[in-house]
């Protein structure tokens, strides 16, 4: 291995690590606010990328039907829940809100499908459409069991992962797709060829991390989410609705995951079931951050990306083994240094 190869591998590792970092942020955020480990984050990633790929090929993406179906279901659930409590007017409003907005999005996407709009519009639509799946999943699956134990929530999240994988196979087919790159340009720094696309991945990841930090530190909604994650009961007493916080965090996480898909789509071929292994690596990163610290999770994810790149060079057959074995010393170290506090259940 000479320096130029090491530099290429480092570039590759950091690009992938940046994607894992975004996923890790989504995982940490959702876990902090709702105690759900967002196992289906990988599926949201692939759905985001495959939606963009469908737009690019001039099809109406399968996501349109997926979102429409979920929207109707969520609308009915909301209406029934409100109606049971006798809040008839709110039942109507809730159903209109939960079914109406996603349905409108889906209709707009269906209209956009065959028309070749500029890439930016397609990206925005893919993000919005996949983003809608987040709160819909929250509404349909997690809200009714929001107070269950972490273990129950985890198992349900695994179930959602399998359901979404199956739906993705149905809606997008078994074969993979690539999305168009934002830029196919590249330039040379010494012996190192740097592609603009990978720089874009890095820059947008950094931007997204900064935006999240601002959101949590400076805005009212961000502070509400943060408050819920610190103390659910206390937040409720202060007038923050945990249901609203859950839906908001799922929406943010889904958009983040879809964004990862859009970033990684031009670099690699994505399949209906690609997401899981990618999200697992984001999860390793999040674990390094103790599922609590955003900067540590981001650093951990970069580390995972680098380890992956270098082990693919030295021992390609054992790459995944090396990456996932990493979690054992990390867990050991975390269990030794962190102060344990039992969750009261």
């Amino acid at each position, binding site marked *: 291995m000479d320096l130029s190869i090491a530099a290429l591998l480092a570039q590759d590792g950091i690009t992938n690590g940046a994607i894992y970092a975004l996923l890790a942020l989504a995982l940490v955020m959702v876990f902090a606010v709702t105690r759900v480990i967002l196992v289906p984050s990988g599926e949201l990633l692939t759905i985001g990328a495959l939606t963009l790929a469908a737009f690019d090929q001039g099809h109406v993406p399968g996501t349109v039907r997926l979102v429409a179906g979920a929207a109707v279901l969520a609308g009915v659930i909301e209406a029934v829940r409100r109606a049971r409590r006798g809040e008839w007017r709110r039942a109507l409003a809730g159903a209109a809100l939960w079914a109406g907005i996603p349905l409108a999005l889906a209709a707009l996407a269906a209209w956009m499908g065959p028309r070749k709009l500029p890439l930016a519009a397609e990206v925005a639509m893919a993000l919005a459409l996949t983003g809608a799946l987040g709160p819909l999943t929250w509404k349909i699956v997690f809200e009714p069991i929001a107070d269950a134990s972490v273990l129950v929530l985890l198992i349900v999240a695994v179930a959602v992962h399998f359901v979404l994988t199956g739906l993705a196979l149905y809606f997008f087919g*078994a074969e993979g797709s690539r999305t168009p790159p934002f830029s196919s340009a590249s330039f040379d720094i010494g012996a190192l060829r740097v592609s603009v696309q990978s720089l874009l991945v890095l820059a947008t990841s950094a931007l997204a991390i900064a935006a999240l930090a601002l959101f949590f530190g400076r805005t009212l909604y961000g502070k509400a989410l943060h408050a819920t994650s610190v103390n659910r009961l206390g937040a409720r007493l202060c007038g923050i609705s945990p249901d609203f916080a859950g839906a908001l965090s799922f929406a943010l996480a889904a958009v983040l995951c879809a964004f990862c898909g859009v970033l990684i789509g031009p670099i*690699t071929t994505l*399949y209906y*079931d690609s997401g899981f292994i990618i999200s697992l690596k984001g999860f390793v990163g999040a674990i390094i951050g103790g599922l609590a610290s955003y900067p540590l999770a981001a650093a951990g994810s970069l580390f995972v990306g680098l380890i992956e790149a*270098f082990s*693919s060079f030295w021992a*390609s057959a054992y790459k995944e083994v090396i990456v996932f074995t990493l979690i054992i010393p990390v867990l050991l170290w975390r269990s030794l240094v962190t102060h344990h506090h039992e969750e009261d259940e």
Partner: protein
Amino acid sequence: MKRGLNVALAVAIAAAASAARADITIGVTLSATGPAASLGIPERNTFELLPQSIDGQKINWVILDDASDTTKAVTNTRKLITEDKADVIIGSTVTPNSLAMVDVVADAKLPMISMAASGRIVDPSNPRTYWVFKTPQSDTLMADAIAVSMKANGVRTMGYIGFADAYGESWLAEMRNSLKTAGIEIVAAEKYNRNDTSVTGQVLKLIAAHPDAILIGASGTPAATPQKELVARGYKGKIYQTHGVANADFLRVVGKDGNGTLLPSGPMLVYEQLPDSNPLKKSDATYVTQYEKRFGTRSTFGGHAWDAWQLLAQAIPKALAKAKPGTPEFRAALRDGLETANVVGVHGVFVMTPHDHNGLDNRGRVMVKIEDGKWVLQK
């Protein structure tokens, strides 16, 4: 009114009587979901094109999905045998599943036709394969085609990158054998996973070994990942793929980076370019037009399912002459019929013998080059 009732009753009795006369039951287990879904789905589509009766005898098709999972394939096979009383099993899509099913059908004594590639499924030295047949070309046949083509192109050293699973391993093993006879040396062998987001490390290592040609031992669209990386890193040698990439989705994903790639394939991929004298041209046209009318672009994997039926269509009438469906005698007669089958399929001419339960020869393979998103037959 009363008369109508009588007619209805008569029809019902007739229906009951014909049900009592045993139908032929064909049990199918294939991988329509899971990692092998892109192979299993065209196979499942193909079964929808197949007839519901033969020689006036009704056929019960029982088609199950094994989700590319070995355990599920075995469970499906047992279910097809005990609950559905299958006379013959077709499946599964992939090699590990098919290998696991061999023992089950050998114990139950009924014929099985696999749609998976490995030659081990019908290894004549294994007595358990007495009941087992398969339609796809063996890796050996295809690996040999690549070795011949490499030698003709003056290749002396080869690099290999393949799946870190049974498919990639068995291709590497086959290539080692075929290349030895051709006098070509393997200078680097790397592994990657179907879902890997990046293969930069492996590709850099391959290029550093300066091979004259690189073979990518992978199937479907995942095979495009190393190819695109090789082109992006400026590899100038020849790139070979296996017949696992012979579908339209691969062309779509690999795009212009696929230009000049060589691969062996079943003739049906490029049947329009075959000379009219080739006996396969007609059978390929029949299948591909039917398939493309209903399901879109052809997939060579669907062809394996079609060929399995072509073998049965020849063996079933012979077996019907000897015994009634649903009996052990019928199943044994069906096996004997398959072992003596001589059929022009879509992937080649099947000449079955007791020592060769695949029956394909050089007519079952052609070399194909990718040129501007099209498959071009190499003479």
